[in-house]
Structure formats: structure tokens, C-alpha cells
């Protein structure tokens, strides 16, 4: 097991335990110009690494806000291994920004030389665990810091899985010393799509390993797999749904106040809408904490 405790502790001290906002390219110039009241920003490095102008503006943003780097291109579940060129580019950006958190997904995206531009599902068994753990250790070594792994949004699974997603994540933490990013919306959506209890899923995650939460919008559509049914799609194109706010409160009760990101990646609304969602996340978290203390006291 790798030991990234000191790095994680230092980062955790600098990380606001409040809600931040995903910083996407359409809002970048506005944020530089107006410096809105937001606790922190999360960026997708793949949007910046090939865009020197955006990278330059991002450096300016990082002088005023804590930044979290959330990669969508590392593909820790690919059997073909980590793209070391991309990992080195990511390391360069991480060194330049000194982000408070670096995270990515429990998924795969690359195979036979193709990058498939999606977060694809994995079977949860011993073979996958060995592959992901080895790659995760390589990523943490390559970045020189602890990496947070996010639970995916699921539409399909594999009959060969021998453990649940939560069991898989627990074992990954034990083997690699990674942290977890609990995407509360993904928990809700996956539980609905795959037929399990989202509250039990959250209760099954190791409480001390969860160092960030995500909230995002999804959309519903007819389920091709189940005539008459519906499937929830992780579009990040809408506000956070009411049942997810309730599940978020449960996550705060279990994991305590954690940096919480509000994501909105498609049909991106005015920045003020995103900021309002972040304020609501803070209100829900604060209220939940107060209620928990009152019950305990």
C-alpha cells in the first residue's frame, strides 16, 4: 500500500469544507474578470492541457481560488495501462496549479489505441481489482500525491462481478491508500438504474476515506432495456434533483462536512445559477450538521 497520508493531510487542511463550482470554459473569462464569491473551483484538466490561452487564464484563477483537478482521461480501469504521456502532462498542470484535490473515475476510456470519450463500466471482480489497484498506484506515484476515486454513474453491469461497487471501492482504498470522491448524484442514479438502495451504498463506504462529494443533475428517459421503465442519465445538464439533496444530507451526516462540488457540464446556465446551487449545498450541509449536533446533544 502506498502512503500518501502527509500529502492528503496537507491538502485537506487547505481545502474549504464548503461547496465549490465546476469551472468550464464558457465561464472562464467571466470568472477572471469578476472574481465571483465562490469557495473553490474544480476543473477538468483535459479542457485546458491543449488550450494554452485557457491555461493562462486558469493560472490567474488559481491565484485567487483553491482549485481541484478532476481528470476524465486517466482511464485507471483500462487493461492497456495508463497513458504515461497524458499522466506526465497532468503532472505538469498539477505542479503549476498546486490543487487542493486531484481526482478521477472508477472507469475506463481507452482501448486498442482509441480514447472512447466516455466513462465506461467495469466488472467488479479480482482481476479488475488487481488492474485498477496497480494503475492507481502508478497514478499516485506519477502525481506524487493521493488521488481520489469517484464512484461511476451506472447503466449496465457485468454478470461476472463477484463484489458490489462499494465493496470494490473499500478494497481499493485498503490496497492503494487512495481516497474516495462520493458522487451523491451518481449513487442515486446508479441505485435507481441498477436496483439497489442508495442509502445502504453510502453507509457501506469507508467513512474516513471520503474526502469530497459531488452533486450534479441528471435527466430521465425511456429505458430501452425495460419497456415501460425509465433510466436516469448522468447528463450534468440540469439542477440537482430533490431526492439527491436528501441523499446529500445523509452523506453529510455520515462523512461530515466535505468539499462539495456542484457540476453542470451541458446546457450550461449563467454562472449565477451555478453559484446559487453551491449556496444551497452549503445550506443543506450546515443545517444537517446542526440537526446532527442537536440530536447528539
Amino acid at each position: 500500500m502506498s502512503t500518501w497520508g502527509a500529502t492528503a493531510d496537507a491538502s485537506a487542511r487547505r481545502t474549504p469544507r464548503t461547496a465549490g463550482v465546476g469551472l468550464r470554459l464558457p465561464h472562464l473569462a467571466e470568472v477572471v474578470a469578476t472574481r465571483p464569491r465562490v469557495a473553490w473551483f474544480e476543473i477538468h484538466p483535459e479542457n485546458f492541457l491543449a488550450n494554452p490561452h485557457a491555461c493562462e487564464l486558469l493560472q490567474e484563477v488559481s491565484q485567487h481560488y483553491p482549485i481541484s483537478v478532476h481528470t476524465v482521461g486517466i482511464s485507471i480501469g483500462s487493461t492497456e495501462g495508463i497513458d504515461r504521456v497524458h499522466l506526465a502532462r497532468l503532472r505538469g498542470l498539477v505542479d503549476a496549479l498546486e490543487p487542493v484535490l486531484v481526482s478521477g473515475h472508477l472507469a475506463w476510456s481507452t482501448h486498442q489505441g482509441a480514447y472512447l470519450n466516455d466513462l465506461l463500466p467495469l466488472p467488479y471482480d479480482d482481476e479488475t481489482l488487481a488492474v485498477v489497484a496497480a494503475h492507481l498506484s502508478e497514478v499516485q506515484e506519477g502525481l506524487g500525491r493521493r488521488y481520489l476515486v469517484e464512484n461511476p454513474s451506472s447503466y449496465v453491469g457485468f454478470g461476472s462481478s463477484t463484489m458490489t461497487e462499494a465493496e470494490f471501492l473499500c478494497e481499493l482504498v485498503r490496497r492503494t491508500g487512495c481516497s474516495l470522491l462520493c458522487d451523491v448524484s451518481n449513487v442515486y442514479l446508479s441505485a435507481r438504474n441498477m436496483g439497489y438502495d442508495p442509502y445502504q451504498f453510502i453507509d457501506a463506504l469507508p467513512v474516513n476515506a471520503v474526502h469530497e462529494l459531488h452533486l450534479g443533475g441528471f435527466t430521465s428517459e425511456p429505458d430501452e432495456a425495460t419497456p415501460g421503465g425509465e433510466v436516469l442519465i448522468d447528463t450534468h445538464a440540469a439542477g440537482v434533483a430533490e431526492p439527491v439533496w436528501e441523499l446529500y444530507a445523509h452523506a453529510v451526516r455520515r462523512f461530515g462536512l466535505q468539499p462539495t462540488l456542484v457540476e453542470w457540464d451541458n446546457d450550461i446556465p449563467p454562472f449565477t445559477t451555478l453559484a446559487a446551487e453551491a449556496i444551497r449545498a452549503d445550506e443543506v450541509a450546515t443545517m444537517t450538521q446542526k440537526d446532527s449536533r442537536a440530536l447528539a446533544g
Partner: protein
Amino acid sequence: MPSLADLQTDVRQALTSGDVTALESVLVGGTRAQGRLAIHQRQYEASLATALLEKFPATGWLIGSAMMMRVAKVFLRAYPPDRPCIAEYGSEFPTFLAAQDAEATLPYLQPFAELEWHVGQVSIAISEAPVAWSQLVCVGAEALPKVGLTLQPGLRHVHAAWAIDDLMKVYLTGSAPDRFTLADTDACIEIKGARGEVQFTRLDPATFLFRTALAMGRSLGDAAERALDRDERFDTAHALTALVVDGLVTALNPETGVDA
């Protein structure tokens, strides 16, 4: 059960070709799980097609969004991205586009789409500190022909047999006239840009050859020879001075310039 590598091969195949038969017995989710894989198929196709349309809006304006979307979907199946930064995806699209239904295609479509690719690239570039004239003087006359020059990252060159830069200006300024005649001409176009700004300049053919040779890493001596072969009146000193004075040279690379 198939190995993880075999599963990923089957999923890749399902995404890029639509064939899910190899996965029918291994997927779970709903009562007919392979139907759920369509969500990933759509995400793969829609995200990359949208990325291409956003990268080539002027080309789409020229040929229509329906044809752009049709060709983009064929392209992304034949040429999936090979790296995760989608901003770098699509450089081969102009050639691919022009090869589709080639007889019906506009003869200037490929260079126009290539021009648009370069416009996109230079508009996200940033300018680097230029070399001062005094640094060039220090090189010495004997060593100078062997020197290579690094040019600004936001500098590109496109040669076309039509005035595609004029057509691009019409698109970029949103000033489409009722009637536009595309001139049939030898256009040596330099595209210069940084931080969202883009400029087009027509160069004379010899200067164009000189600058493109330098951009490809050729030595000053070799670049000058190419220009002189094109036009014996080419003035190397003047051309070099113009590059430096315009702030287009960012580094001198002694002995690293490639000779022909």
C-alpha cells in the same frame, strides 16, 4: 466469462460499430441490458460529433449542418480519438471530409476546412517572448545559415488555389453579402493569432516558402535557398529582418536547423 481485456475489446467494438452481440450474455441491467449500452454508444457518438461541429463551424456553414453531422459520424467511427484532450481531435477531418462523395464536393472544401483547423489552433495560442535583433546579430555571419528559428506558436501557413481567407473573413465577421465570388487565385496565407485574436496575411510565394521552411525546422540557409529557387529576387536579409521585427521569432537554434 471473458477476461477484462476481451470485455473491453467487445465494448469498444459495440461503441464504434454498434455490434453488441458479443456482450449479450455478460451484461446486466434492466430486462434487456444490451439496450442500456446504447446510452454509452450515444454518448460516444454525440460528444465527438458535437466536438467536431464546434471545431469546424465555418465548414458547417459552408456545406450545411446535416452533411457535417453525417460525415462527422462516419469519421469518428473510422478515426476515434487517440488521446483524451478532445481539443486536439480532428486534424485529419478536412482530408476525410473532402474524400466523401468527392465528385460532389466543393473543390476548395479541404483547404477551407484546413484553414479553419488552423484558425482554431492559433486562436487558443499564447504569444511567447520574441527574440531581439541584438541576439541575432550575436550569431555571426558564418554560423547564420545553419541556424534554425522557432516561430511563434500562433503562426500557421496554408497554401490554396482559391481565396479561402476572404471566404473565412466573411464567416468570421458575420458579413455574408448577397453574392460572393470566390476568386480563383494562388493564395499563400499566413494565419497569426493569440488569445482569441486571428489575423490573415497574404504573403508573396517566395516569402511563404521561406517561412514555411523555417516553421518545419529547416535552417535559415535552406529556407533561403528554397525561396530563391522560387524567386531569384528574394531578399533574405529583408525577410529575416521582417520576421524578427514583427516579433515572430521566439528562439534561435544554432546548428539545429535541418538542412535539405
